[in-house]
């Protein structure tokens, strides 16, 4: 593997990335000028409700956008080099060798007519140039690594439980020793116990093998289990970015705060879940200013007119007029 230290520890840089989806002449912006960095071996959660742009962000990084998506601004750099994320064939050498994806294996992400050992061995043969025998041996090692007996490799996906299939997906993602794994809601559709086991496994393996992780989820408690850092997305933009400890202890953005308050916590005796009032924003016709202002309990006059930028705040970043630094006179006047 290439030494990643030469880029100041930065494995991935997303710089001003915007993606539009065109549908019957109407274009809607799924993500809007997203910027963030990811260090080698770092685990970051990407959290947001449906339509917040978290999956589009992840698929753009993996170069797996659908044909009706258009990258309208920005770029993605991997180890300092620009990734050809809008060019399918040019992305091919990067795929799985550098960035692999853990899809929802519990659903239909595994091919139903092939034995699982064959599906894990496939990228080893195609990407690492292994012979069939070597690839099968590696696939069996990987199965053992994720806690599946090697002789279960002869099974077909439908013969395994949802949790086992998710383990197979993780084994497959590790096949070519990538530096970055994208987990696309890997524990959705699993029961809570299995979910915890899978997250533990994913967290252990990636820190042992020093693999960076981008975990997409709508569930903040999942992030708490296995991420160092979390980015909260709302309506196609990052609204808050910080360490897990920081965000849970002191959420800055009102949306983050409401998200955390909406997590049911049986230990505290709180029986009522507090939902966030209002509906997710329309992506074709966004609210003016801060997209969250119609639902925000702390909204001010400026929130409806001016889009807050994502500025450094303490250890992390936040995009909210409540937390603008004092050099902005307009905010001071309102505060």
């Amino acid at each position: 593997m290439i030494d990643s230290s030469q880029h100041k520890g930065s494995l991935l840089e997303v710089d001003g990335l915007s993606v539009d989806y065109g549908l019957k002449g109407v274009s809607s912006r799924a993500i809007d000028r997203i910027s963030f960095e990811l260090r080698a071996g770092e685990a970051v959660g990407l959290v947001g409700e449906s339509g917040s742009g978290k999956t589009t962000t992840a698929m753009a990084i993996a170069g797996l956008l659908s044909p009706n998506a258009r990258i309208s601004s920005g770029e993605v750099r991997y180890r300092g080099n620009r990734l050809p994320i809008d060019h399918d064939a040019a992305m091919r050498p990067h795929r799985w060798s550098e960035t692999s994806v853990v899809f929802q294996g519990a659903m239909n992400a595994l091919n139903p007519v092939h034995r699982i050992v064959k599906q894990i061995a496939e990228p080893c043969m195609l990407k690492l140039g292994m012979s069939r025998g070597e690839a099968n041996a590696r696939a069996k090692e990987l199965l053992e690594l994720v806690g599946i007996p090697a002789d279960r490799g002869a099974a077909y996906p439908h013969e395994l439980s949802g949790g086992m299939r998710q383990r197979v997906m993780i084994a497959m993602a590790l096949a070519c020793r990538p530096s970055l794994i994208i987990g696309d809601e890997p524990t959705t559709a699993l029961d809570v116990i299995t979910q915890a086991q899978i997250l533990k496994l994913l967290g252990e393996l990636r820190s042992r093998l020093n693999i960076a992780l981008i975990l997409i989820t709508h569930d903040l408690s999942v992030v708490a289990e296995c991420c160092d850092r979390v980015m909260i997305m709302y309506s196609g933009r990052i609204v808050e970015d910080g360490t897990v400890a920081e965000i849970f202890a002191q959420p800055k953005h009102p949306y983050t705060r409401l998200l955390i308050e909406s997590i049911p916590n049986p230990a505290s005796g709180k029986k009522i879940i507090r939902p966030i009032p209002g509906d997710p924003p329309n992506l074709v016709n966004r609210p003016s200013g801060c997209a969250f202002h119609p639902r925000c309990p702390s909204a001010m006059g400026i929130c409806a007119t001016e889009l807050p930028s994502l500025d450094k705040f303490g250890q992390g970043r936040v995009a909210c007029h409540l937390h603008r630094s004092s050099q902005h006179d307009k905010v001071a006047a309102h505060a």
Partner: protein
Amino acid sequence: MSRRIGRILLRAVITLVMVAILNFGLFRVIPGDPASLLLGGARTSVTDEQIEAQRQNWGLDRPLFPDQALDYLSATLQGDLGYSFKFRGRHVADLILERLPATIVLVGLAQFIAILCGVMLGVYAGWRRGGAVDHAATGVSLALYSTPSFWLGMLLVVIFSTALGWLPGYGAYSPGANVGSLDLALDYLRHLALPVTAVALGLIGQYVVVARAAMSDVVTEDYMVTARAKGLTGGQMLMRHAFRNAMLPVVTLITLNLGYVVAGAITVEAVFAWPGIGGLTVEALNARDYPVLQGIFLLLGVSIVMANLIADLAYGLLDPRVRQ
């Protein structure tokens, strides 16, 4: 696995017995007394005593169930399908076996061509959905699918036989052709060309439509995104992941169509006077030759049941999900 095969086989055997019983019943409810038909029908003057003697001679005076039915079943099991009315004294089984090869050559070859072209075209159209090939193939297929193949046959005869005079449009051999020579083989192939084309064209549309639908379902499956994420090329995605999944409904269609190889081209055979089972069926119908028709119906029933049996077994080989 073996329990599933056992169940499939048992079902096939039960269906075959039902087919045979229905076939027996069907020809007993058709109006017309076999004894008087044997003696030349109502046109000649035969006495009641003569008819009665014939009835006793053939066992027709005994009750239909169970006596005659059991006779029929046991004779059928021994390969005895009775005697033809039209071709006096000839065994029905012999007549059918004589005509069977011509039909198998005609429909078998047409199926082979239709499967090869239709599946390739359909798979490509579904893979590149919305492309030029897709639009062309879908349009032509739907047109062919909805056109009766005998009409296609007539069109081919009018164009290539009557107007252009390139190919013969009638029979399997030219009159007076040399027996056993190379010319004879060529002559046979020239006669085969138009009927095979007519049957194949009628089938291609079906394969294109089914293969395209199956493939366009497969390309939207999650495992195709996984394959793309793994860095596979388009060709690798098609051959390693998409093709086999798309073949599941196609293989079912192919094996079910195999059942119609023996009787799938009755109208086309009639148009081209092809000396196969289809031609025999039409001749037997015109002559009210019930024993021959009964034999052909039985053959058709048996081959369709067998084709279903093969389809069930083949599906298990291709799709691990149905093996349990």
